[in-house]
């Protein structure tokens, strides 16, 4: 599952349109847009809001095998051109100095930049990094639920020393829309990576049926999980195994799966 986190609706709108995400009708604390395998949450401005939105989203989608994240928003910059898109490689919280590092698992396609997260809007532009108000909260929270390789922060320059777009919502959407192909490319590679990781987790329903076949102690369950994950990743037929194991006691089920695993693994 890929979760987009944006502070404002105008920043997320091009993504919502591009992926045809539908607004959730539920009474949620954050505006939420959904499709199969993708969500977009509008956090509101500020790092605390961003952290809260991430935590809430992670709880909403906790049953998903793996979560990937993109923080999409606008940022201020010294001299970078308005509308430039950056993949953030270092996030610095201006209040406590804490630094975070997204870790792309593929070579960067986009230009990289550091981003400093401020608690208040500022016009003290510096050349060495971008400025925003959410990224550090987003990183702090999303890193609790996913590894750094599944977390991206993409920023589009909306303000610099010479020009300010910040409060013109329509213009912000246009700037994001202008970069939608690059953004979608990043999303595509992140989804592929996330799917690869998620595929290593066995189907939740099959796992539940397996654990209901007999009474397993916690130690047995740990062993069972290792064996089942291996066999499912090696393409064994879950239905056949479940049917063959039905009616056996826990120790026999584990022993049967161990023997199956031993036979399969000998050839390397």
């Amino acid at each position, binding site marked *: 599952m890929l979760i987009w986190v944006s502070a404002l609706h105008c920043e997320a709108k091009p993504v919502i349109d591009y992926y045809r995400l539908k607004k959730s009708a539920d009474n949620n604390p954050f505006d939420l847009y959904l499709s199969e395998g993708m969500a977009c949450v509008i956090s509101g401005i500020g790092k605390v809001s961003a952290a809260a939105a991430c935590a809430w989203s992670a709880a909403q989608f906790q049953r998903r095998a793996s979560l990937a994240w993109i923080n999409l928003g606008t940022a201020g910059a010294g001299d970078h051109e308005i509308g430039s898109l950056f993949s953030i*490689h*270092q996030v610095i919280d201006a209040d406590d100095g804490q*630094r975070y*590092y997204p*870790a*792309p*698992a*593929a*070579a*960067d396609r986009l230009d*990289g930049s*550091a981003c400093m997260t401020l608690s208040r809007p500022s016009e003290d532009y510096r050349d060495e990094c971008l400025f925003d108000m959410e990224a550090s909260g987003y990183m702090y929270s999303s*890193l*609790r639920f*996913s*590894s*750094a*390789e*599944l977390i991206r922060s993409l920023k589009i320059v909306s303000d610099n020393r010479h020009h300010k777009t910040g409060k013109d919502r329509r213009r912000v959407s246009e700037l994001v829309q202008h970069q939608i192909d690059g953004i979608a490319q990043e999303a595509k590679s992140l989804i592929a*990576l996330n799917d*690869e*990781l998620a595929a*290593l987790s066995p189907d939740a329903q099959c796992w539940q049926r397996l654990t209901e076949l007999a009474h397993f102690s916690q130690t047995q369950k740990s062993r069972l999980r*290792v*064996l089942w*994950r*291996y066999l499912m*990743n*090696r393409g064994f037929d879950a239905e056949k195994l479940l049917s063959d194991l039905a009616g056996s006691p826990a120790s026999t089920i584990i022993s049967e799966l*161990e023997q199956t*695993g*031993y036979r*399969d*693994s*000998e*050839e*390397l």
Partner: protein
Amino acid sequence: MASRVYVEAEIRDHPRTERLLQRMRAPAVIEIEHYGEVFNPRSQNFRLQKKNPAVIIARKNNNHVLAAPPGYGLGGKYNYYFSHMLNCIYDCRYCFLQGMYQSAHQLLFVNYEDFAERIAELAAQHADEAVWFYSGYDCDSLANEPMTRFCEYFLPRIAAIDNAWLELRTKSTQVRALLEHPVQQRIVTAFSFSDRVSHASLEHGVPSIAKRLDAMRRLQQAGWPVGLRFDPIVYHPRYREEFVALLNQVFDSVDADAIHSVSLGSFRLTRGHFRDASRLYPDEPLFAQQMVLENGIVSYPKEREREMIDFCEQELLQRIRPQSYHPCDWHG
């Protein structure tokens, strides 16, 4: 080549840092305060990161040289190891590095002088005895040689200490730097080999056996001492034929009588490393093989291990000088 390089601000202007950056021509150089910010956080997935590891250039501030773990070594009384790098460019499933660090990034330390100083101190402490220093524990000693120029710095320094011995352990073919230096009998380059089946299944990114043997042969012909490491031996139904085939291939290329040392050991990992590696690779057959836990070490059941070691040992001893053989006796 790494697409990202993290550099500690303190050593940003260090000549080795500058040379590394020049050589890597990385598009993104990110300044950090301490390598731990990037290397140590828990929220990292080694498996995913291994697809595109970054390089971290840093300074090592302490523990430059450490006592080698029991059972590690070639029978010498004083054994130490040091790591100018952490992590390896190769991706061998059986390697303890799979579960050792949170990060798969390659961490390069540039303060070679501090390592060399400590090596000299330790050698001086045991002045009348041979002291072994192993460099290929947390990394491959030579794989990054064109970048790190490790040999260029350390070979003359080890050579200048009369009782210091150095083992370079490698799966690479990077021997040019050694060939450019005067031969030194106290510096042994040890090449690790697995049979064809294990190589194909488990040693991702490692040069072919033939290419490595060619590198080994060139070193040996130049007069450098070379060693062989058959560790770990991994079980599969054809391990006997494949091990014999490997030995035949090896000793067709190199002179068995001139081999400095040969070691042999079966697959084993500490319980923690085995658990971490098998979580990272739940689809890996190696971790689904029948194993037992004994004294904190996960390994093959005794009978299987004995059978494998006995067979391989017997085959090996038909080809090498017995005094050059050093079994990896990890049972203690």
